[in-house]
């Protein structure tokens, strides 16, 4: 799946987690802009993993701070 198609799918998945309706760009940060706490992160990561049938380990999550970085990581992880 290319970046555009991956981004579109992720946009659908993140919607219910974006409770404050923040406008999301590639530069949006999960901890700062989206105010995701650790529980939200876990549920959101699980949703992404299940959709794309991938693993995003904690080690990899530590490198992902922004929405754009997540899309890039998911593209890469799909191989």
């Amino acid at each position, binding site marked *: 799946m290319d970046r555009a198609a991956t981004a579109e799918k992720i946009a659908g998945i993140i919607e219910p987690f974006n409770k404050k309706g923040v406008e999301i760009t590639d530069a949006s940060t999960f901890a700062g802009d989206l105010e995701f706490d650790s529980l939200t992160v876990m*549920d959101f990561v699980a949703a992404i993993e299940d959709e794309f049938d991938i693993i995003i380990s*904690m080690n990899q999550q530590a490198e992902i701070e922004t929405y754009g970085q997540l899309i890039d990581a998911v593209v890469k992880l799909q191989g």
Partner: protein
Amino acid sequence: MTDLFSKFDPLIELRTNLLAHGQEDPFNLVMERVISPTEAVCNGRPTILLGTYNYMGMTFDPDVIEAGKQALDDFGSGTTGSRVLNGTYAGHRAVEDALKEFYGMDHAMVFSTGYQANLGIISTVAGKGDYIVLDIDSHASIWDGCKMGDAEVVPFKHNDIEAMEKRLKRIPEGAGKLVVLEGVYSMLGDIAPLKEMIRVAKDNGAMVLVDEAHSMGFIGPNGRGVAEDQGVLDQVDFVIGTFSKSVGTVGGFCVSNHPKFEILRLVCRPYVFTASLPPSVVHTASTSIRKLMHAGNKRAHLWENSRVLHQGLRDKGFQLGTEKAESAIIAVIMPDLEKGAAMWEALLKEGLYVNLARPPATPANMTLLRCSLCAEHTAEQVQTIIGMFERAGKAVGII
């Protein structure tokens, strides 16, 4: 002024606000005198202890105390050395033998604390390129063990067998896999469906580590823990445990049937680079462990205490962490930290000590009053405790 301590400012402020209202500090309690496994003088008041993890009440067992005193006389106050240098005494071997017998396993390795046992085994066994699949509600020592090693760390939703299985199946072919579970989860006192989870782990070629810190001594027909109770102990590759709960002293251990297990003594850094337990500690531990092998009546009484307290608190209208008593931990869910701290203090003034647990140690950002029962609590004490909870709960406005 901004310096390295600035990151603690929010916590400092939270504590300052809490204590400004005259609240006694829940994290700075002093036990001036300890009368028995169930009673002490805390902050100047005679207090029933209901938050000690002293499940089997072994801390004042006369045989245990005698063994410790004798060891002090015979071997001195400390070993001043690592297990792999000058720190292995006859007592260290003896306690490892007692553990092998207690669990019916081939190998036992004793660490200076339970924390170090998880830290050491997990970080050593799972290395670069391996995968650790673990429950999201795992204890801090498990997380720290993951962080210290170089493996890929993959958490799954608490006790969710399907979520665990999905993650195991996605791990690249050929990678080593370690599944880390706990028998009893100490925050809510709930147990894991180990039978199903271990079957799934084994079907997917993973090794299994189970932390049985909160079940040793009283869950399972021989007190070997939840895995024994569910008939799957023989499937567990590593059992982690502690001496600081049912055993009644301090220390940690790992037991295993793995034929190459002994090599860990040379490669496990939290085992090698620390001083071994003092002789008095290992002698009290082995005496206690051997007595726990034959503690069927105490186990039965502890279960009775746990069920009565659970039902009693429920009947008074408290919200609890589990539907029924699954272990000797009964977690009472508080509406928020402020009410929880007020309730904790009201109970202390009634003469009852429980643990106040708050985020991030707790799941789902809950504030909990955690009660852990002891086999030495009398049926009468349990009724007294329920009455104290009722009065404090009404005073604070929780029930």
